């Protein structure tokens, strides 16, 4: 049996393999150090960073739902300076690729983040979050409209030499239109999808189960929506797509890749199994070699 070639290039971002840890579900990497060899991952996407530190939303912030979960972290983060001071030095020492997820309250903030990250050693790419349902100003609003989405993407694109991925929201009427506009801005790839807006209430007490009332739905429950998003967008847009949403075990990654994803991100599955991303990678590699694929790239978009 052949060892399949797992390398993949998302535009300028060259990965040793196509399995990454999704933003917000893998902390700043170090939290999972004792559970796995981080360097085996294609990349780690760190928790979303804003210019200023942010305290996030009031608790409770997570709740389980059928085959999934809601979160309303509200992008708690130490701010760019805090990140650079406290997190980046350790991250820089890792051999895996580090992708920094960024979000701003204005287009200018996105541009500023891009510019300030551009110089930094140890940051391999940016993932632009225009799709977070948990912050009021900005976030999802930027991802809801093709023109605004493209404007954010352009702003980031023009302020950094590093590869740029744009992460889109599924909470929209016409994802393909947004994806198409964003793709035109010259970014390296699209990440599909962020969470879906949801809510849960304790039936007995009537207490909303999230402090923020509304949060983002993730996990296996949303996998069919994510796969559909990847499929539709990949048929219309020519830049690489990174699939994300409901990937828990390796067959889920294969499903995303067959739908059209060049690479995948494993999100909330990591909470269930800290090694989920590596297990996915190992399963994927096994599958490819058993099925005699010479490379993972051959599987992209391949339907029967």
């Amino acid at each position, binding site marked *: 049996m052949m060892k399949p070639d797992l390398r993949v290039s998302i535009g300028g971002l060259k990965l040793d393999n196509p399995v990454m840890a999704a933003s917000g579900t893998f902390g700043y990497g170090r939290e999972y150090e*004792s559970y796995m060899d981080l360097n085996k991952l294609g990349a780690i996407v760190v928790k979303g960073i804003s210019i200023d530190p942010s305290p996030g939303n009031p608790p409770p912030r997570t709740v*389980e739902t059928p085959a999934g979960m809601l979160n309303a972290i509200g992008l708690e983060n130490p701010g760019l300076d805090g990140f650079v001071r406290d997190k980046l030095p350790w991250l820089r020492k890792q051999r895996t690729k580090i992708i920094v997820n960024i979000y701003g309250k204005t287009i200018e903030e996105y541009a500023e983040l891009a510019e300030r990250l551009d110089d930094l050693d140890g940051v391999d790419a940016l993932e632009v979050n225009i799709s977070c349902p948990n912050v009021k100003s900005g976030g999802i609003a930027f991802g809801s409209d093709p023109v605004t989405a493209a404007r954010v993407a352009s702003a980031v694109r023009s302020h950094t030499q590093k590869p740029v991925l744009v992460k889109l929201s599924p909470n929209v009427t016409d994802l393909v239109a947004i994806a198409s506009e964003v793709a035109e801005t010259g970014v390296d790839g699209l990440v599909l999808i962020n969470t879906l807006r949801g809510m849960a209430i304790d039936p007995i007490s009537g207490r909303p189960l999230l402090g923020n009332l509304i949060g983002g739905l993730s*996990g*296996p429950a949303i996998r069919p929506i994510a796969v559909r998003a990847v499929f539709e967008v990949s048929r219309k847009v020519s830049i690489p797509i990174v699939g994300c949403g409901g990937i828990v075990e390796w067959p889920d990654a294969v499903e995303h890749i067959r739908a059209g994803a060049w690479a995948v991100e494993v999100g909330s599955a990591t909470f269930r199994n800290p090694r989920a991303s590596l297990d996915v990678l190992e399963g994927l590699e096994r599958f490819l070699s058993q099925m005699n694929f010479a490379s993972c790239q051959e599987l992209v978009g391949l339907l029967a």
Partner: protein
Amino acid sequence: MEANRILARVVECKLVADSTLLLRFHTLEHRWTVNPGQFVMVGPVLERFYEPFLNRPFSICRRPDEHTIDLLVGIVGRATGFFLQRGVGWDSWLMGPLGRGFQPGEQAERAVLIAGGLGVAPMFHLAESLIAQGKRVTLLYGAKSSRMLVPVTALTEMGVEVVFATDDGTCGFKGNASELLSEHLDKITLSNAGDVYLAACGPMAMLEEVDRIRRRLGLSLEVSLESRMACGVGACLGCSHVLAGNKLGRVCCDGPVFDAEEVFDR
């Protein structure tokens, strides 16, 4: 050894009080060094089945030997209902040992542990370790009713003084554990505040009350907090708790045990 994820089998599943299970896990792994107050994330092995989806946090109640981990589990919802249904013989992943445990320090000769409801779980392990260090240990253990009280003979046999409180008076003191604490502290004479170590685990209202009492007396106190958790390791920021001075603390890794000074605003 650092926290890791191990496979364990449920070898005992016994109702020890109303809606309360003693779950005993057996595992081949034996390198865990557990501090009292630390917890595990429990996730049944269910490939391709995503209900329950997330792991659940439980305090390590006892560690009878290096291959065995005992949990006390209140049956309150989906995952704990599942444990009840499955009985013995099923396999689970355990992530642990997690979090910051109790840090009683050396000087205090006397420890008073205050437990409300299932908050008694980590107190087993803590009491055991304090006794091993030669301390004098009292457990003030409150519950709604005698039917909810978990047997504590393991503790009394090793010399822990256990005093009960029940809301309905069906066992011991009629009232809650914090009221019992007031009474109890009145009885003991302290030459100086450093002589006694207080630790509490239970509902937030109880913890707040205990904090008020110990402040009055100038005693120090550690409290173990609860929060809904997704990751259990500090990665998701889901368990953030608003601490004193509006600071945020992650219950899973900055806690679950905090110094009361950090937790409560004056």
